[in-house]
């Protein structure tokens, strides 16, 4: 708790310093939030290089808007919001559908234990195949632990739409995973 408050104070100080043009203070902000920004981009794009480029653009944009950021909480909200929108924009611009071949997926096991690395990998790939809106909602919900209200603010979507999108996304994920298991079993026998 105290650690969080200290970190918050350090970021607040870094924010004030960087708004006055202190670059080492801005580097501290980047270091503190790079995992979050990169992970949103990576889980959405499923490409490390693209995700790093996008995260870099987000921080560059933050540098230009530092004066608009009022607090460490606002900073976090701003980064999640801008990263999410940029991910969707990038996908729309490129229209480069992921070419994940289902055959490339490892053979599934009949019973899986929680936090199984294979299940995690399969889930990641299945999330990457979801439609853009569903994908970003799932990432913000399960990677960032944001509530439907926060997601609705970040994505400019009504809360009910967020809830229904999340519900559909989970149903789609289950269907995709079941289909993969069915195919793998069929191929096995």
């Amino acid at each position, binding site marked *: 708790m105290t650690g969080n408050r200290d970190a918050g104070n350090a970021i607040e100080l870094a924010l004030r310093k960087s708004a006055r043009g202190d670059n080492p203070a801005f580097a501290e902000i980047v270091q503190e939030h790079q995992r979050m920004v990169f992970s949103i981009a990576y889980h959405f794009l499923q490409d490390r290089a693209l995700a*790093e480029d996008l995260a870099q653009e987000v*921080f560059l944009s933050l540098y230009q808007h530092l004066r608009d950021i009022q607090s460490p909480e606002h900073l976090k909200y701003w980064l999640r919001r801008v990263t999410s929108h940029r991910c969707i924009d990038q996908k729309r611009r490129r229209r480069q559908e992921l070419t994940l071949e289902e055959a490339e997926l490892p053979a599934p096991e009949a019973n899986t234990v929680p936090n199984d690395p294979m299940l995690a990998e399969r889930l990641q790939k299945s999330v990457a195949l979801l439609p853009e809106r569903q994908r970003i909602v799932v990432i913000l919900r399960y990677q960032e632990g944001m509530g439907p209200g926060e997601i609705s603010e970040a994505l400019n979507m009504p809360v009910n739409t967020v809830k229904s999108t999340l519900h559909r996304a989970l149903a789609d994920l289950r269907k995709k995973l079941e289909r993969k298991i069915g195919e793998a079993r069929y191929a096995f026998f």
Partner: protein
Amino acid sequence: MHFSEDDLRAALSHQDPSPDFTQRVMASIGQASERRRKAADARFASLVPPAMLRWAAAGVAACLLLGTGWFDFRHTEGERAKEQAMLALRVTNAKLNHVFVRAGLQHTGPAEEENSKIRKEHL
């Protein structure tokens, strides 16, 4: 296949970017600032061409010199006029004293001293 929300959280856990990510961000910020500064300079240069800037500077310098010279000239002229006016007053005073002496009237004030002073000046 069944998965729980915890499985999804584990699958979507935070990942680290490359170790040099922060340095690359800071480098790109440095480049962007440099580009912006150059663009601003270019905009200013396009608004005021260098030749025009040089002429403007020369004009300002000439104005300053002329203004200072004119002020100095006016100041010296003023001092000279003041001295001439004082001399004219002294001469008038001496003449008046002389007239008063001739007319047999007594003149009050430092007339004699003034008279002798002017006479000395004229000699």
